[in-house]
């Protein structure tokens, strides 16, 4: 067992501020959807708009970072060891079999994570930000695109919000699937993660 440096400062800053933003946006977003009352509608809207803008900035900044650091390569899906990873998540993990993909700073994500985070970072979250901004500036969007109503923008924004929650549930659970229950959590806080000596 050794502790290797896995997540740089920016990655951790990005991860935790993204978590904060998404949590804030989800809580306020569903208040705006009238699912419950918490902050009060007006405050929820104001927080949602500011957090949304803040998150948009973070996302754009992260894209810059990914692009210039080459980190985007880690988020490209691959078929290599995909089935092994699927087997691990469904069966291997139960039997305490070794992890089929070894984490290194240049290859932090296993094939299933690559697919998930590719969808998250390049489809779900940017689309959510885009529909959010269109929602916020509906007056301009109406004039630009000649659309009549915010309805489809709002409905897709809501649908994607449900997807984000589903991701969060699974994501929070997956934190516990490290060597110990808190291995991954510690890793994302300190940047260093206890990792097995590569068996391959």
């Amino acid at each position, binding site marked *: 067992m050794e502790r290797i440096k896995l997540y740089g400062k920016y990655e951790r800053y990005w991860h935790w501020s993204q978590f904060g933003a998404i949590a804030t946006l989800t809580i306020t977003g569903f208040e705006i959807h*009238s699912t419950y009352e918490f902050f009060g*509608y007006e405050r929820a809207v104001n927080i949602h708009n500011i957090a949304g803008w803040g998150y948009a900035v973070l996302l754009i900044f992260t894209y810059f970072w990914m692009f210039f*650091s080459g980190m985007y390569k880690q988020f490209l899906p691959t078929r290599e060891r995909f089935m092994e990873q699927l087997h691990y998540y469904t069966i291997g993990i*139960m*039997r305490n079999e070794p992890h089929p993909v070894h984490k290194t700073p240049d290859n932090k994500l296993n094939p299933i994570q690559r697919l998930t985070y590719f969808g998250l970072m390049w489809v779900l979250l940017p689309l959510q930000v885009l529909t959010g901004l269109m929602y916020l500036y509906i007056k301009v969007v109406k004039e630009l695109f000649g659309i009549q109503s915010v*309805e489809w923008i*709002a*409905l897709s924004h*809501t649908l994607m919000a449900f997807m984000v929650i589903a991701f969060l549930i*699974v994501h929070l659970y997956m934190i516990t699937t490290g060597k110990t229950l808190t291995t991954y959590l510690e890793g994302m806080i300190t940047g260093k993660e206890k990792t097995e000596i590569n068996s391959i």
Partner: protein
Amino acid sequence: MRRILIFSSITKGVGIFEPFKTQTIDAMKGNLKERLETLAVVVLLPIFTAVVIFQFKQTTSKPVKVTAVMQAEYQSAADHSQYPILQQNFETPQAVTAACLTCHTKRDEEIMATAHWRWERTEEIPGRGEVTIGKKNLINNFCTGAQGNNGSCMRCHIGYGWEDKSFDFENPTNIDCLVCHDQTGTYFKQNGKAGMPATAATANAQFQVPDYNNVASNVGLPKRNNCGVCHFYGGGGNNVKHGDLEEALLDCSRDVDVHMSSEGLNMQCVDCHTTENHNIKGKAYSVSSANTNRVSCEQCHTTTPHQNRMYDHHTEKIACQTCHIPTYAKANATKLWWDWSTAGKSKDGKAYHESDYEGNHNYLSIKGSFVWDDHVQPEYYWFNGTADHYINGDTIAEIPLKINTLFGEYRDSTAKIWPVKVHRGKQMYDTETKELMNLKLFAEDPGTGAFWTDLDFDTAAILGMEYNERYYSGSYDFVRTDAYWPLSHQVAPKEQTLTCTECHSRDGRLANLNDFYLPGKTYNAYLDGFGIIVIILSVLGVISHGIGRYVYALRRKNQSK
């Protein structure tokens, strides 16, 4: 060299490009990447930060203070008591008008062009074309129609003696200058006299012959009581019709009306209903149709009064009145229901009345059954400033019949959501022609067939239809009718303005407006259901996966023992 230095000091300072630094430091010598990188940090970060701060700022500003010149504060430059012509011995009110016109030349022509005088306007109604309509010929949802009931109804005409069709609309001395311009509060038109004040022959305890010399010496711009004597009491009593215009406005608290409150600005009607050449701005859509010559809040408050982007965006689709008039009839009750079908009952051969627990009539033999209420929550409709009306000759198609129709829908870019008083009721119609009817209601003496004296619908219908030169088959029934009155008065103090969730909630005030997506109200049940199922499945998935891991771990533990 210098560029690299700047770059590395920035990345070090920000501390966010560690991976980048190690990986590409060799490759970046003078290349494009480096410049973009620097650009990203030095230019974009401040821009985005500024954007976020700007966003935040837009939600926290204070509303604009309005400075407006009050038209009603104008002081007459002349002391009218000094004019000998106004101190003559006036035999008739018409003689007063003649005296006014000797100085105020051409004003009679201005007056005679107005709807206040003509009781009709020629306006374009979408789907109908140009029509000439007004109080003169429309049927309303209250006493139903003025024509034929002149003695009573034409008391509110700004003329003298519009008793019947022979009234001369071209005679300037028929204009009643005093009813609008009297500042003494002593000049009144007598009831039942078609707009005439009391004469020596008709004077009684309630109505005396006006002191014309005093009244004519004290004239000025109309005040609330001048306008209110008709606009507060229309329909036979205080606040019967509008709901937001009533005698309490003569002296009310800020809670009732922030503009007219005597505790505050004490604004007069003409401060908003600005007037040039006797053309008074403002439309009441019970009788008006066209989106012209209207009063608007924007006259003083502009289209972006809140200094808050989120609120100001609302003004595109929401009338100011919608949020700022949360309830109406805040001092005295207004009539919400008028059912003519129960009218005509008598006790011991006499008409009678009953009152509700608050003292408002809920039954009158001469008028039928009523429902009154105060502090009423408006109903909300799209409205673009144009309206249609039931015009004599129209057949009843849809029930309840709309006495007037407010045009507008979400897709109409000129329409906004308005608060509306809807006055519902039942009134007579001809079952053969399917048309609403004119009734003869008022007569000074019993036995002439008027409903209010004789309580007989059929005779009243025959006389009313005859006077209006309309056909009556002889068979009648009652039909549900609705009248729509957009609200603009009794604006509340800002603390009482609607809060977001009054509309942005599942069962809010706009629950009946379903032609657009309203955040917090509108939702797609399938989408929400699907979303909830996905969440439940995710939870079940991770729980069962977790249980699986736990069970296998236990088993391994037992085996290793």
